[in-house]
């Protein structure tokens, strides 16, 4: 059961019914257990790619393979895919339709045909995981934007998926809410869940992901380890994506020998601050 390859796309093409471009000859591979970030400007095809992962969109040509099994888009195949791949949409208001939080989270498990007791226990556990247990009986419209997003995630977790796909999860969240959501994603990842998300926030992606899928104008530009990003900054710039701020600084500091060349490549501003502190401490101890 445990394929190390979670998804494989082979020459996937997609055009929207209004003839606008979706994906062009896209081939890629996503590892099970990874934290993969799809990175590109708005309109590059991030959402199209993500929606293929849940069978929301069906390729015009090409094959999408999930866990070794090519998707055939039959009702049973979609059912099995969607019970294993949870999808978080950008706008929580299009996902939360029920009157109460509990009712909304139970939507997926009920559709899976589970019994009342099982549904109840899953709903409880899912709300616990996202830290919304005490809001179970609240009406959805009284929640803040960040809380709504968390309830949406609980709605997916209640289906006990193996993969979580998130479309721009950080959009519209302020700093504290972003930190909370990041912590939830970390917990889920530690529990073994594969997480795939799209974002246009280079700093966040660089800090959080272990694999980056670059996409531009519907073309998939391959999957690379995040740690190697610092060697492909020109590629980023060419795609209209800025260099992560921390890398800019790191390179400036390195160039002017303000930090040692042994300093590990930092993934976030906080990393860099830590490195600077350690380096100074090290120098002092010598």
């Amino acid at each position, binding site marked *: 059961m445990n394929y190390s390859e979670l998804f494989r796309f082979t020459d996937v093409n997609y055009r929207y019914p209004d003839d606008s471009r979706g994906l062009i000859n896209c081939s890629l591979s996503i590892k099970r257990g990874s934290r993969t970030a799809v990175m590109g400007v708005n309109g590059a095809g991030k959402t199209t790619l993500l929606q293929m992962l849940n069978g929301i969109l069906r390729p015009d040509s090409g094959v999408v393979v999930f866990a070794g099994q090519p998707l055939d888009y039959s009702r049973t195949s979609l059912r099995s895919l969607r019970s294993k791949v949870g999808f978080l949409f950008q706008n929580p208001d299009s996902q939360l*339709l*029920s*009157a109460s939080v509990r009712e909304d989270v139970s939507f997926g498990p009920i559709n899976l045909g589970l019994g009342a007791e099982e549904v109840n226990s899953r709903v409880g556990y899912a709300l616990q995981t996202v830290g919304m247990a005490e809001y179970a009986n609240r*009406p959805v*419209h009284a929640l803040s934007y960040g809380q709504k997003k968390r309830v949406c995630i609980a709605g997916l977790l209640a289906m006990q998926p193996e993969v979580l796909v998130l479309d721009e999860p950080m959009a519209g969240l302020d700093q504290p809410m972003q930190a909370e959501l990041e912590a939830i994603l970390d917990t889920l990842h530690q529990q073994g869940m594969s997480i795939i998300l799209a974002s246009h926030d280079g700093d966040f992606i660089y800090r959080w992901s272990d694999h980056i899928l670059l996409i531009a104008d519907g073309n998939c530009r391959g999957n690379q380890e995040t740690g190697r990003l610092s060697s492909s900054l020109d590629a980023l710039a060419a795609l209209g994506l800025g260099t992560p701020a921390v890398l800019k600084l790191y390179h400036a500091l390195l160039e002017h020998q303000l930090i040692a060349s042994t300093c590990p490549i930092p993934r976030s501003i906080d990393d860099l601050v830590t490195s600077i502190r350690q380096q100074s401490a090290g120098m002092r101890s010598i």
Partner: protein
Amino acid sequence: MHIMEGFLPVKHAVAWSAASAPFVAYGIYSIKKRVAEHPEQRMLLGVATAFTFVLSALKIPSVTGSCSHPTGTGFGALLFGPAAMAPLGAIVLLFQAILLAHGGLTTLGANIFSMAIVGPFAAYGVFRLAQAIKLPFGLSIFLAAALGDLLTYVTTSVQLALAFPDPVGGFAASFAKFASIFALTQIPLAASEGFLTVLVFNALARY
């Protein structure tokens, strides 16, 4: 099912337009009064028009397994009152004619009469009647939406039968013909719409 552009002979097109005109005029008069008292209703009626259009483009599964489009007129009549539905429906039908080539300009009057006048007033009347004889709320909603839908199609059949009486059996035979094609197949679809409308009101009541 809308009567398409050019389908009705001139006399019929004119007659149905004349029949619809007073209802539309009264509808405009009544919403004018509403907007004068509550100016924000102007926007509300606009968004409601958009919603009616969108509803009619939805696919709903039918009890027989086929798919259909809800008319939404019963639902609209219950929310905004039947009088307002004539001008709103007129705009929706104009949108459908021009944006989807569904219905038409010369048949606008006839389509307004069946979809934006008979449907809403029937739905509203049935609802009030059902409530008056103390039927449960859900059943009243179901009957209103389902019968509103059904009577719309009966009206369409009458319109077609009047325009194209059967050369052998006259109006009655022609009506039987159209009714069996449009109205009879519509019965399960009307039931679906009624059922759906009940679900919507249930969901609304819980907010």
